[in-house]
């Protein structure tokens, strides 16, 4: 990296490239293949950190730091924030709904990669200049002198773009209040006249669960949706304790029975546990 033109990098960099490059590709693949958005975001963050290392290795010290601070630090966290907002556990089903989409995507991706590789190979770069001379006065100073002279207009315009984007984000997420906010008196009157004078029932059943996503059970054993937060209800993230708990109990009994080598009391109806439960419930209800 000392001369003006070099043909190869140091062995250390080569080693770093092959190891970290492999990890980066794996990270990218995980990004697109993970079922949960949170996992995708984390994989992407990892890939970005590896890219930051590559920037540093390529003499782009400023960009390497910015990549870590801005991209991985700020932007990816923004992503995670939105993922949390939208629903962290909402795992995607990976079955394709559009006919032939996956095949076409694979074909296009494969062909595109081949073409890009062919294009790069076609360029047949043998030697390279290296950044030793350009970074003589320091990488940040070099960038600064370019940004504030040659690219100053682009820089100004990007500033305007950022402002616009900020305003745009505010406008898009801002929800206009279409009606007057209720006063405390109105709210209290509404509550007294409404169905629920006392506080809404708490989630959780029989002290087995106190998680907010588990609905409390009514005396007849049916879960009451009232006990669960509205947001979770809308996302459909309510876990049902009645079936879950009964299944857990059944599994426990099964294991105990196996261990004690006793015949299973439920084995006869084993295949249709759920149906049996429901039948019992309806019998109770009819009584």
């Amino acid at each position, binding site marked *: 990296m000392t001369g003006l033109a070099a043909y190869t990098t140091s062995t250390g960099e080569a080693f770093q490239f092959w190891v970290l490059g492999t990890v980066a590709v794996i990270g990218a693949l995980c990004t697109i293949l993970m079922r949960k958005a949170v996992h995708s975001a984390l994989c992407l963050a990892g890939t970005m950190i590896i890219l930051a290392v590559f920037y540093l290795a390529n003499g782009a010290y400023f960009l390497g730091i910015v990549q870590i601070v801005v991209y991985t630090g700020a932007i990816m966290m923004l992503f995670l924030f939105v993922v949390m907002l939208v629903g962290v556990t909402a795992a995607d089903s990976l079955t394709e709904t*559009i006919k032939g*989409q996956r095949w*076409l*995507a694979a074909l*296009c*991706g494969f*062909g*595109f990669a081949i*073409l*890009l590789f*062919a*294009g790069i190979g*076609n360029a047949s770069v043998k030697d390279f200049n290296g950044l030793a001379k350009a970074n003589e006065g320091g990488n940040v100073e070099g960038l600064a002198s370019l940004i504030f002279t040659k690219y100053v207009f682009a820089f100004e315009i990007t500033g305007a773009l950022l402002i616009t984007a900020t305003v745009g984000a505010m406008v898009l997420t801002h929800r206009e209040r279409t009606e007057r906010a209720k006063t405390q008196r109105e709210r209290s009157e509404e509550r007294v006249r409404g169905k629920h004078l006392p506080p809404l029932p708490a989630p959780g059943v029989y002290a087995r669960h106190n998680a907010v996503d588990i609905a409390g059970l009514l005396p007849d054993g049916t879960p009451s949706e009232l006990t669960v937060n509205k947001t979770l209800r809308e996302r459909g993230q309510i876990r049902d304790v009645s079936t879950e708990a009964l299944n857990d109990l059944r599994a426990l009994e099964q294991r105990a029975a196996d261990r004690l080598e006793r015949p299973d009391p439920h084995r006869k109806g084993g295949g249709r546990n759920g149906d049996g439960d429901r039948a019992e419930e309806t019998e109770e209800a009819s009584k």
Partner: protein
Amino acid sequence: MENLIALLVAAPLLGAAVLLCGGRRLDRVGHWLGTLLSAASFVIGLALFTDMLGKGAEERSLHQHLFSWIPVEGFKADVAFQLDQLSMTFVLLISGVGTLIHLYSIGYMEHDERRRRFFGYLNLFLAAMLLLVLADNYLLLYVGWEGVGLASYLLIGFWQHKPSAATAAKKAFLVNRVGDMGLSIAIMLMFTTFGTFAFGPVLEATGETSEGKLTAIGLMLLLAACGKSAQVPLQSWLGDAMEGPTPVSALIHAATMVTAGVYLIVRSGAIFNGAPDAQLAVTVVGAVTLLFGAIVGCAKDDIKKALAGSTMSQIGYMILAAGLGPIGYVFAIMHLVTHGFFKAGLFLGAGSVMHGMNDEVDMRKYGGLRKYMPVTFVTFGLGYLAIIGFPGLSGFFSKDKIIEAAFAKGGTEGWILGSVALLGAAITAYYMTRVMLLTFFGEKRWQPDAQGELPHPHESPKSMTIPMILLAVGSVFAGGFFSIGDRFMHWLEPVTHHDHGDSPLSAATVTGATMVVLVIGVSLAWVQYGRRPVPVVAPRGSLLTRAARRDLLQDDFNHVVLVRGGEHLTRSLVYVDHTLVDGVVNGTAASVGGLSGRLRKLQNGYARSYAVSMFGGAAVLIVATLLMRAV
């Protein structure tokens, strides 16, 4: 002085605008306003006329350029007026007779609640007619031509509550459309041939143009003239046009508008001079119509329709004269002017009779009216003497000259045309005497009207009799005044370039022959209608009479040939349209629709599918780039 020309048109146009837009508050003064503006136009015309008389014969043509109408490169049309001797003659006739008829209408339309509107239409007609004769190019003339057509339509259908009037108006409009199509084609031909429509350049350039083109233009102009002047084969509308109020029949369908065709042919004389075939066609049309109209006039019992047949026949004389070329132009115009006087007078007289007879139009129910309506009788009688060509009266001079000119055409043609004209004169004498005898002489054959009341004939008010008297004076003296010293001929000489022709018969012989046929015609009529009592209900009559009562089967002819033919043509075209054209169109549409139905599946609405095509497109772009670099 030439700045006054536009005022000639502007005055009645203003009247029309004010009367038609002014609303009911003008009801009380509207008729006077209309008459005043018409008279203003006449006074301006007189001023221009006296000014013109003070100049030398060659300097009399005035020109006024108002503004450029369509100033496009290679297509220039101006709104410009040309006032020469020919136009002057028409201006005086139109505004003069027009004013008299306005005056007459004040009395005639007194009880009509839409009188203001009537005067608005009359003024509109005057403006359009003056525009027609004052235009200095064919395009502007066309505007006036359409304008009089519109006014004619509105006035024929003025009593629109009568279905017969509404139908007659529609018929006149439609038949005129055929002629107008001829005029528009003629104008287009002129533009492609000469590159302009202005009279001056077009008429000067006729010398260097091939005869074929001139013949085409001439025939198209003849078609236009046939439509407007009710000549065979486009004559069928004139008889029905009598459904309009009588002053309208007098002004538009006798004195002025129907003579526009004659004006057009005389104005385009240079074109016809260069196209002998077209000229021959004009004379044939004139001769046929002359007899056609006269025969129809003999059989009609409706006084206005009889006069309408007479009008058709007299215009046939004019067209015949105009077709003779420079020999006849002057006489065509002269007969036009004298005819304007006596036919307007006759119509006004007929209107006066109807006014006194509870709007009865059947002459067989008149009789013996001369004692009850003396002024009408005298004026009508003078008009009658003028039209049959009684020596010394207008018709004698003008019609005689046309017959002479027809003989002067020379050759077999001249003999045939001259004989036809003579025969026409005899029939004219016959049918006019018949009208006269049936109306004013003989027994009273009055019948009770719908309310069961016998009519009480009485003389019409002054506003009606004064125009009749003035027109009668014109009918008596105009011909003599024009002919003494060939005044009219010299007056029009710069425009029409008179040619005496080579008559095989002396003027005296022709006059003598005319007198003989006149006497024969009158005596025949007297024998038939004067000596014997006239039946109130028309006898069945001979085959020819029955045909003539039906306008010589013109409507039946039109129905069989045009309507039935048109229906069959339309039906076959509809069939072709449905099977062939629609087949192609629908087939194309169906195939496009089917293709779209297949292609539509690509547009499935999923952003990811579109992303695939974008990605594929990017790949194709890379291929293209690589290929370009490889090449």
